[in-house]
């Protein structure tokens, strides 16, 4: 990207090439259409300018023409829709083996928690070639996580999780912007995405690591008394939480929901909103008792209780292994 007159953004993720391709297609179609209309208007305007003695010929219209120029643009637009929707589906469906990173936004900074326990502010370090899934929430108003070089963006909302994923392809430092207006320093709520070679990343990871997130969660699970009801050996008063993540849960009212991050989060904050079939609504709310960071840890812990679908999954399932080591194995 030219530092003086950028006409095209950097391209540094698996998504960016695909978005660019679609964008170029749109530019072409739009360019052709615009040219067509500009040329038609200009030519007709010149050719049929008022000349004394020549009168306009009255033409009423033509249904066939009308239908043609409704249907053709419609089908052209259909291609936009399909291509765009396919891309969007990809953008919104994190691969199962992605490394997870928790993001908490607040006015006006980004707080980042890696599974390994690393914390950063306004910077996110990621290795090249690794699928990274961001699980994001906000402490105050709506923000939006925007990395132009990756062509990705997702609003970050208070009260729930939204997710985003990417796979960086080119090492470097890229802009991170907050793209949803959030108050005074909205334009200052930026930072950098630092994409590193795997080895470098492993070194970076090794420095200053604290307890992995799910370990913090495990402690909280014990100290908050969750474990008194949710037991893993015998059936407690609450459901056994092992293996629930990403599995369908049958609710008391007959509905079935998937136990994703938001469900786990809601189960802790608003336990009566969705009652698991066969259980009584006795779980107290932990709203106001746990902070957003603690919530993240609890969610990470509950998730870690589920076996990953494949052996090559994210780091969070091998807490025993030191993060630096695993990282090398991780990179595909």
């Amino acid at each position: 990207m030219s530092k003086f007159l950028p006409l095209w953004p950097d391209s540094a993720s698996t998504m960016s090439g695909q978005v660019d391709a679609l964008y170029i297609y749109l530019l072409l179609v739009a360019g052709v259409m615009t040219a067509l209309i500009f040329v038609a208007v200009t030519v007709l305007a010149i050719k049929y300018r008022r000349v004394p003695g020549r009168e306009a010929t009255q033409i009423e219209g033509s249904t066939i023409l009308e239908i043609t120029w409704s249907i053709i643009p419609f089908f052209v637009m259909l291609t936009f829709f399909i291509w765009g929707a396919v891309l969007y589906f990809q953008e919104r469906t994190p691969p199962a083996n992605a490394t997870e990173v928790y993001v908490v936004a607040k006015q006006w900074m980004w707080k980042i928690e890696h599974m390994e326990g690393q914390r950063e502010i306004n910077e996110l370090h990621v290795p090249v070639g690794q699928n990274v899934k961001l699980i994001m929430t906000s402490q105050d108003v709506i923000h939006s996580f925007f990395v132009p070089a990756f062509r990705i963006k997702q609003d970050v909302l208070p009260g729930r999780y939204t997710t985003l994923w990417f796979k960086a392809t080119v090492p470097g430092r890229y802009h991170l912007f907050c793209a949803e207006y959030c108050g005074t320093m909205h334009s200052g709520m930026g930072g950098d995405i630092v994409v590193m070679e795997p080895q470098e990343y492993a070194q970076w990871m090794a420095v200053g690591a604290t307890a992995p997130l799910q370990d913090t969660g495990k402690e909280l699970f014990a100290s908050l008394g969750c474990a008194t009801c949710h037991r893993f050996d015998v059936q407690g008063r609450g459901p056994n939480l092992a293996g629930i993540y990403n599995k369908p849960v049958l609710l008391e009212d007959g509905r079935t929901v998937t136990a994703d991050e938001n469900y786990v989060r809601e189960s802790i904050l608003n336990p009566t909103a969705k009652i698991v079939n066969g259980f009584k609504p006795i779980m107290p709310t932990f709203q106001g008792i746990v902070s957003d960071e603690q919530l993240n840890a609890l969610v990470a812990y509950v998730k870690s209780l589920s076996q990953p679908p494949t052996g090559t999954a994210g780091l969070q399932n091998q807490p025993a292994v030191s993060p630096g080591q695993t990282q090398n194995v991780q990179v595909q």
Partner: protein
Amino acid sequence: MVEQQHEVEGDLTVEHEHTTHSQGFYLAIGAALLVLTATTVAAAFVNLGPFNPVIALLIATIKATLVIIFFMHVKGASEKLTGAIVVSGFFFLAILIALSLADYMTRSWR
């Protein structure tokens, strides 16, 4: 009080068809509405599973329809346009609700 129910009086300046019904008719509709209200309350105390809200809304809709058709004289009296306006009002409300719910109901789908 109401001795005569003459439909027309002499000094009408607007030639307009009378749209109203008899007093007894209105009282009957009013009574029907009251009965339906009682029914809703009663139905709410019977466990019909997922049909409780359905019944409640159904009865409410019947009541609303009665009011619209007979009290507001949509049927018989005014032109089709009035009917079309009422219908379009509810139609766009339905769009608002349906498409919003389309988001909320599918959020947890994967």
